[in-house]
């Protein structure tokens, strides 16, 4: 009734604007020179001729489609009132999540059903099919509504699955952090783990807790967890170096170890002999091994205790002090020159130590 009042309040021959769409539900503003148009007038505004069985439906905000007869005055409240106009002699009934809709065409696409029922993007549209598994209806899929019975659509949350060890977990989002997946599966991410991501047909990949697993990846299988509670007896307590480095250090006779300190990786040689002329005869020598070594270079070197020249003079570019495992180290800011850039194929701990020895000798031979 409010609609008639609203229409009645308008001046007699003013123009009104409504939204009209065809079966694509792409609404466009159309003006009609009559504040109280009939179904036939709306059909004419949509350029569907009377001979073509115009079918006018009022599209309510909740998605309901209400047929308007040709002679019937359409209740119009607002410029945003929407009408679907097509040519058809009957409507086909479908249901989405229990709500009934009468659609004026034999075929409907998944996209149209979504628009009609106002389905959120993160929901998946399903069609229940008798005696068969229900099918996922994509936006471009056509559903024939002339098949006997009411077509029943329903929506489900899209879920994504991955195995964590032997537990299958589900995620509402298509990506999940390794940490969250482990929590869901009941593994404690605070414990140290080896974590490998297995994808069929791809090399397995070691991943960290903050790695985003894309569950849409084809062939995604599982996160394979192994407690990181065992050392291999030869590797010290930090991390493994390259095979060539471990071999070199093994035959060097040095006491050496690898240390992880606040995310930085250090090789420490405990009894590194110095050429004469320094305040100490031997130091603990630390080299920072970048995570991406040997792609990334070893740069500079660090010694403990802090060195002076034997005569008490300070050494240039060694002012910065850092701590590794609670011990203070003196940073020697010595870098590769333009002439001898780091080469990942050739350079390693041994070649870097030759530069270290060179830098140490230069200080005492001047």
């Amino acid at each position, binding site marked *: 009734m409010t609609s008639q009042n609203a229409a009645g309040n308008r001046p007699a021959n003013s123009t009104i604007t409504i939204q009209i769409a065809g079966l694509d539900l792409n609404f466009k503003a159309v003006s009609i020179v009559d504040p109280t148009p009939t179904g036939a007038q709306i059909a004419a505004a949509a350029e569907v001729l009377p001979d073509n069985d115009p079918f006018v439906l009022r599209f309510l905000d909740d998605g309901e489609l209400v047929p308007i007869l040709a002679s019937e005055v359409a209740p119009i409240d607002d410029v945003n009132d929407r009408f679907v106009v097509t040519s058809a002699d009957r409507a086909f009934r479908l249901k989405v999540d229990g709500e009934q809709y009468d659609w004026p065409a034999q075929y409907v696409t998944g996209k149209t059903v979504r628009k009609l029922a106002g389905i959120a993007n993160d929901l998946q549209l399903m069609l229940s099919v008798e005696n068969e598994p229900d099918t996922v209806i994509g936006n471009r899929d056509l559903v024939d509504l002339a098949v006997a019975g009411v077509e029943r659509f329903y929506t489900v949350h899209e879920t994504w699955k991955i195995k964590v060890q032997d537990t299958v977990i589900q995620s509402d989002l298509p990506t999940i952090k390794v940490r969250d997946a482990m929590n869901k599966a009941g593994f404690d991410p605070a414990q140290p783990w080896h974590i*490998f991501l297995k994808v069929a047909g791809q090399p397995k990949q070691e991943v960290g807790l903050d790695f985003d697993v894309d569950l849409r990846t084809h062939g995604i299988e599982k996160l394979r967890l*192994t*407690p990181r509670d*065992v050392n*291999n*007896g*030869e590797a010290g307590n930090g*991390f493994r170096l390259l095979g060539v480095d471990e071999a070199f250090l093994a035959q060097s006779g040095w006491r050496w170890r690898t240390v992880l300190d606040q995310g930085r990786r250090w090789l420490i040689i405990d009894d590194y002999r110095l050429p004469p002329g320094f305040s100490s005869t031997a130091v603990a020598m630390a080299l920072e091994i970048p995570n991406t070594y040997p792609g990334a270079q070893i740069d500079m070197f660090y010694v403990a205790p802090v060195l002076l020249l034997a005569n008490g003079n300070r050494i240039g570019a060694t002012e910065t002090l850092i701590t590794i495992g609670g011990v203070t180290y003196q940073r020697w800011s010595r870098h590769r020159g333009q002439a001898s850039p780091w080469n990942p194929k050739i350079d390693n701990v041994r070649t870097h130590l030759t530069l270290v020895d060179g830098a140490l000798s230069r200080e005492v031979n001047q």
Partner: protein
Amino acid sequence: MILIDIAAKWIRAEYARWQKRIRGLFERWRPPFRLQVVDGDSLPPVVPVGALVLARDGNEDWCVGMKCPCGCGRTIELLLIPEAKPRWSLSLDPAGLPSLSPSVFLRDGCRAHFWLRGGRVTWT
């Protein structure tokens, strides 16, 4: 005071030596670890005592598992895949007895440190 320190050191060293000797004697009586292969990339929920269980996924050896030979009851899992660090390699002698390389060193708990060679445990 210095004498007490020296005595304490000596007692500790003797204790460790005897412990090693007793463990060594025990290892002679223990039947050797034998290899059991399971399908898949993971160990079964229960690893039998005295078995070295190999998880073989297709033609890829993922890991081996064994009960800690110290008797603490813990299951030790060691990765064999080349991508892992640390990783171990498994070999079998003609009698089918397994060896692992390098040694196994538990970071916590019993802190067992041993070699498995020819199915037998050598404590370090």
